């Protein structure tokens, strides 16, 4: 409950506070830190297979909304809150939060995301997704540069269409089954074809929100227009909720029905390939990173598609580490933007010499993204490959390997130009030195990426627990439905 209410309360308090920036920042940071603490508590509480539930309003399970935390939810709440925390600090560095609305909106957005991870009710999920998305519309418009109007329109239009489809899907599910509670719906799509069709509409909506190929192009169109801190926030929360919902719904509602594996694998592979190809074809840091999101989402979906204990654990591990790494990269872009005033590759150069710490943070995160050891990304890639090999899928294995190589190529492209290239003349005059608030967050997230390699055991343990919960959702279902 704290993850949802805490930030909302903070948002309300932020709205009442006078224009004392320091005070406002402290409130937002404290709320987020509290969420991290709760997330960790939930992680510990769920580690023995228990599923803590909260029945909002204290009514019987059939008629009310139940929030529940299993290892997957707890992990995602924790990781998301870490990203939010980093973004808040970075926003203080870039000055994004000087906009009066920035902090309250961020709080509401994050509350929606945490809620979406915890809720077990599909209609409530729709509402919370809206709670998350509507602030994002405003943030995009608040923080974007020129061109934000067009990008904002595309963004709002697509996500609104997604929400409409989602609501229609939820309605159809209710029409077929008479319930919108995930626990009551468990396994129905496997038994009732009509429920599978209705669930398909819901999944389609989340595929659009999660930017899966072929429904991906809104993301690289819209995200790069927002300020890098805001994109980091979006990348850590928004599409991940779509992805989470797909994972959860496929596992619970469909019971991982193998009939859909080929389709999921195809979508996953297409996302991986198209995303990475797009990334090498564009010319600004944020655009490259935005396309990579599509590619990485494909990796996670791949883990889901194979639907074995190993592959699910791989997907969850991948998701967690990639959220952190991606945020680190976007925050690096934020530092670049703040010091050089642009993140277009053609106007960058010499960053490695002018700010070595930034180069370090970017290097670590980029190598982790490309799946090179000793960073967390390599374990994630190893787990995915291992899962693919276990089921003997050589096509998947080959594509995953090639995509990771192209990922490295695209990261090297950024590195070679922006960090090693000649300092462009325009940049020589206006090169500010990044402060701690700017550099700290990407460095901290980079450190997380680094530590996830050698110390990946605990995270893998959580991922294993979460995978077990997805593979065999009976415990989750029992706890939520109260039966």
């Amino acid at each position, binding site marked *: 409950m704290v993850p949802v209410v805490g930030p909302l309360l903070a948002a309300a308090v932020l709205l009442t506070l006078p224009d004392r920036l320091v005070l406002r920042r402290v409130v937002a940071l404290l709320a987020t830190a509290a969420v991290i603490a709760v997330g960790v508590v939930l992680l510990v509480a769920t580690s023995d297979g228990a599923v803590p539930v909260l029945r909002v309003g204290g009514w019987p399970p059939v008629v009310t909304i139940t929030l529940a935390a299993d290892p997957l939810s707890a992990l995602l709440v924790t990781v998301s809150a870490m990203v939010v925390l980093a973004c808040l600090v970075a926003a203080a560095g*870039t*000055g*994004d939060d000087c906009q009066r609305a920035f902090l309250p909106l961020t709080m509401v957005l994050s509350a929606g995301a945490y809620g979406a991870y915890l809720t077990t009710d599909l*209609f409530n999920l729709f*509402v919370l997704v*809206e709670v998350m998305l*509507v602030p994002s*519309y*405003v943030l995009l*418009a608040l*923080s974007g*540069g*020129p*061109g*934000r*109007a*067009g*990008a*904002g*329109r595309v963004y*709002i*239009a697509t996500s*609104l*269409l997604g929400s*409409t489809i989602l*609501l*229609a899907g*939820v*309605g*159809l599910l*209710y*029409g077929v089954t008479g319930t919108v509670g995930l626990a009551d719906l468990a396994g129905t799509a496997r038994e009732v074809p009509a429920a599978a069709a209705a669930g398909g509409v819901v999944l389609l909506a989340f595929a659009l929100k999660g930017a899966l190929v072929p429904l991906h192009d809104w993301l690289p*169109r819209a995200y*790069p*227009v927002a*300020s*890098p*801190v805001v994109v980091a926030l979006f990348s850590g929360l928004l599409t991940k909720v779509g992805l989470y919902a797909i994972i959860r719904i496929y596992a619970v509602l469909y019971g991982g029905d193998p009939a859909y594996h080929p389709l999921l694998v195809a979508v996953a592979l297409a996302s991986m390939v198209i995303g990475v190809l797009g990334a090498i074809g564009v010319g600004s840091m944020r655009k490259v990173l935005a396309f990579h999101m599509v590619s990485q989402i494909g990796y996670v979906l791949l883990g889901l598609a194979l639907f074995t204990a190993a592959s699910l654990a791989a997907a969850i591990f991948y998701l967690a580490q990639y959220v952190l790494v991606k945020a680190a990269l976007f925050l690096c*872009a*934020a530092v*670049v*933007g*703040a010091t*050089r*005033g*642009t*993140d*277009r590759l053609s*106007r960058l150069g010499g960053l490695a010499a002018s700010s070595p710490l930034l180069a370090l943070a970017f290097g670590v995160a980029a190598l982790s993204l490309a799946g090179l050891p000793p960073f967390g990304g390599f374990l994630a890639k190893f787990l995915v490959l291992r899962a693919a090999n276990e089921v003997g899928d050589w096509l998947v294995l080959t594509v995953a390997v090639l995509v990771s190589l192209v990922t490295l190529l695209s990261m090297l492209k950024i590195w070679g130009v922006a960090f090693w290239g000649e300092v462009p003349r325009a940049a020589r005059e206006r090169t500010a030195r990044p402060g701690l608030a700017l550099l700290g967050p990407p460095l901290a997230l980079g450190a997380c990426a680094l530590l996830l390699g050698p110390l990946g055991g605990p995270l893998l343990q959580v991922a294993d627990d979460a995978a077990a919960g997805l593979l065999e959702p009976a415990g989750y279902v029992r706890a939520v439905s109260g039966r």
Partner: protein
Amino acid sequence: MSGPLIVGVLVAAGVFLLLRPGQLRLVLGFVLLGHAVNVLLLAAGGLHRREPPVDGGGPESADPLPQAFILTAIVITFGITVYLLRLLRRGARRGSRPPETWDGGPR
């Protein structure tokens, strides 16, 4: 058959408006789609029960849950529509430049 048909015509009209150029059509298209989903939700509760769900209602009482869903959805759609109208206002004042010309981190 009436419920599905109402949904169908609303969706068709809404989609048609969405795919046409122009801000206002986009907004109105989403308004129509919102209506369509509301009718769908109501149909999901079962259109054969048409008495208002009040305490002590008879066997014909409609399922109150979809109605609550619709109320929530209407209000959300209203909020977003209002926000979209703001876009309409902005979009009119200055056209969108292509994103490639943009440059720049936060000010």
